[in-house]
């Protein structure tokens, strides 16, 4: 007689499972439709990377050109600049920005009372809801000749300058403004993770005489480590898209800083619409970016798993 504890539950057909959980499936349907329509459907356009676009024949009818677009890409100096700028800006933003919300969350959790925490959280989260178009206007005003930056500089006898048109200053401005916009929003998830730690652990540690730093290192950090790891993987995966944010750079840059600020996205936009480059070539540039993103995501996920954390898949 089979042991009832080890007996397998009878396998049910997929149809029956769907029927049982029909409401969940119904709820997820719009999301699937969204992905099908806006993410998977348009993917046939990727074929353009291997074609030269013909207006009369459209995407499907345009003639195939094999790997020609990718060969051109390797010899294009502007693509090279855009490629390295994308990597530099993305990596630097990750390094500069990623720890900031964690530090902010810990500071708010540890040092603020509930009311103060809510106040600071609201103030710091607010910029996230302002679009880059508006924020860029504000930043330009701050850094313009009549702006507060130059007013202060002139008080100390400096000549007015335009940091947004200065190759040395432009990237740091990107990092700082990115932190300013996102620090509050990104800290919410860490604050939630911190709130999920059993307060008795902190109390017990306090009774045992653990210092604040010790409590942070041995209770708070392990409590949010898995969240940090998942978010790091997500950030790395989206690094090239969101790190080198098109909206931020496009709204702030100008030709004097192209050499340090032109990223793959802005390069595609400028070349497609200002110069009128071939859509096939521009698609090839986009495909290269997507492939790099995929590799980065895989690498980050593998690394996290090797470090003993849970990966995304």
């Amino acid at each position, binding site marked *: 007689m089979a042991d009832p504890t080890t007996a397998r539950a009878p396998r049910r057909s997929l149809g029956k499972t769907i029927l049982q959980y029909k*409401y969940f499936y119904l709820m997820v349907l719009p999301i699937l439709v969204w992905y099908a*329509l*806006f993410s998977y459907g348009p993917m046939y356009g990727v074929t353009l990377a291997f074609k030269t*676009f013909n207006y009369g024949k459209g995407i499907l009818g345009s003639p195939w050109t094999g790997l020609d677009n990718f060969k051109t890409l390797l010899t294009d100096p502007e693509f090279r600049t855009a490629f390295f700028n994308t990597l530099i800006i993305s990596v630097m933003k990750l390094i500069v920005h990623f720890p900031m919300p964690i530090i902010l969350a810990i500071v708010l959790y540890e040092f603020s009372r509930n009311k103060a925490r809510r106040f600071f959280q609201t103030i710091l989260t607010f910029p996230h809801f302002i679009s880059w178009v508006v924020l860029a206007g504000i930043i*330009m005003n701050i850094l313009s000749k009549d702006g507060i930056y130059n007013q202060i500089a*002139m008080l100390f006898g400096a000549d007015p300058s335009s940091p*947004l048109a200065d190759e040395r200053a432009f990237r740091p401005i990107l990092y700082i403004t990115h932190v300013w916009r996102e620090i509050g929003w990104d800290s919410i998830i860490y604050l939630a993770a911190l709130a999920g730690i059993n307060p008795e652990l902190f109390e017990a540690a306090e009774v045992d005489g653990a210092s604040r730093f010790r409590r942070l290192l041995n209770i708070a950090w392990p409590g949010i480590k898995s969240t940090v790891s998942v978010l790091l993987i997500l950030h790395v995966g989206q690094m090239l898209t969101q790190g080198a944010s098109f909206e931020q750079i496009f709204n702030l840059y100008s030709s004097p800083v192209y050499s340090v600020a032109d990223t793959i996205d802005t390069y595609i936009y400028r070349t497609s619409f200002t110069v009128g480059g071939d859509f096939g070539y521009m698609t090839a540039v986009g495909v290269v970016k997507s492939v790099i993103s995929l590799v980065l995501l895989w690498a980050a996920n593998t690394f996290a798993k090797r470090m003993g954390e849970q990966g995304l898949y």
Partner: protein
Amino acid sequence: MVKKITAVAAGLALSTALLAGCGGNDNNGNDQAASPAASGASQSQGASAAADNPYKDPMEISVAFWDADAEVAKIAKDPIAQEVLQKFNIKLKPVNTTWDDYAQKIQMWAASDQLPDIFAIDAIGTQYQRKWVDQGVVKALPDLAKYPNLAEYFEAPDIKGLNVDGKYYTVPRRMFPSVDWSALDRIVLYRWDLAQKAGITKEPETWDEFKAMLEAITKADPEGKHIAGLTTTQNKLIGGLFWLYGNPVATSDGSGSDFKWIEEDGKLVPAVFSKKALPALQNMRDMYDKGLIDPDIALAKGSDSYDKFVSGKAAALLSGGGFVNFNGDIYEKRWKTAYPDTDITQSVKVLKPLVGPDGERAHAIFKTYWSESYFSSKVDDKKMDRIMALYDYILSPEGKDLLIYGKEGVDYKVEGGKKVMIETASLNEKYPARAFLRQLVAYETSDSYDMNNPLIANESIRKEAVDYIDWVLKNTKVPDYDIRLTYMSTPTKDKFTVLDQDDLLKVMLSKDPVEQAWNDILKSYKAKGLDKMIEEVNAKAKQEGIQ
């Protein structure tokens, strides 16, 4: 259970609504199509539907034009525009574009086969315009014999030169009768009132005098506003001023594809890359380093720059649109409210083309037109005929008079062969859509430089405008260049663009010496095939006998 089903159904409905909202196609414009019928003209339409009327069938024509939504909406308030459209039984459907997005939108519509019937863009010479013609995106114009005014319009040499294998694919918007008039398209306005307060007594005529004036104003800062030197409404205009220091043929319209060629050391080269470039760049950098140029010039935006200039925060303004914009954007929109009791022409002057290092007075050189009308290949012959008829009428003497002076006997009368205005109120307010209809076909900017033409409403500015162009025509000379080289097609040249405004800004703001900064730029152009393009053009020019 019922509750669950209701909740799920509501969720689905909401998602579907959101998806539907996202998936809308705005290419067809909104529903505010303007029709003469909408304003009570339907009765007369009935009358015009006589059997012999070639326009008896109503026709809806979609038009992509800058601010088309607002412009077409004005037709309902404009009896003249209604009369013109009614004559051809046309209803215009606006497809809005803006100055910021028109090129992008039109290229996207071309790629996705969603072009409106008529669309306005400055695309001559670009890679994509050549493809539109080769790949059947735009419709060729029919035989113009049936449209005498249009046929005459195409007799102008640089418009005639646009034919491709004997066919025309566009109606360019003519501005001027000759390139000498291009001086009007890049003017420098300066605050003469502030210059006088800073001790300047003579209006500048040379680069040194101009620089001395800017230096005096910025140093004296007469109104205590930390006044900047020269600014611009768009940074793509800057070549139109700085190349004038000894290299005027290098001026281009900012599209990247209209660069002109000169002969140097027995070889044809784009003027931008000639030996004359370096002194012009050095002069520009000197001005920047001395604080005579607004440090924010790289990020300059139209309305901000106008505000800056009028409010006394910039000593000079490089602007497009000549005296028409001087009247509209500076005087009408800003100056007359800010300084109601002053005569603007005593406070703001327009810089005459300066004497360059070679002793010549030079001005920017462009084409005689700017931007073009294109017609989607989906437009059938019947609709094309109607469009051509409308264009022909707007270019006819009758159409021109109606759209400039209004109605004879009501708005103006003819005395001794001259038109004398009767209407004292602004015609722009009385007939708010007439300018749009005119500009849909051609700008004919030169018509405004006439004391009898009320388009430049402020008479002092109009007088200055007329005097200015007379002076320019008498005192400046357009240097030699061959426009055929600009239009010439070679494999490398077709893909080559020269965005000189970007290069000028790079040199201006670079920390490196001018020569080094310029050499770096030259190196990047060489990597993109500059030498190969020069070889190809020289070979083809030789073949075609162009010297």
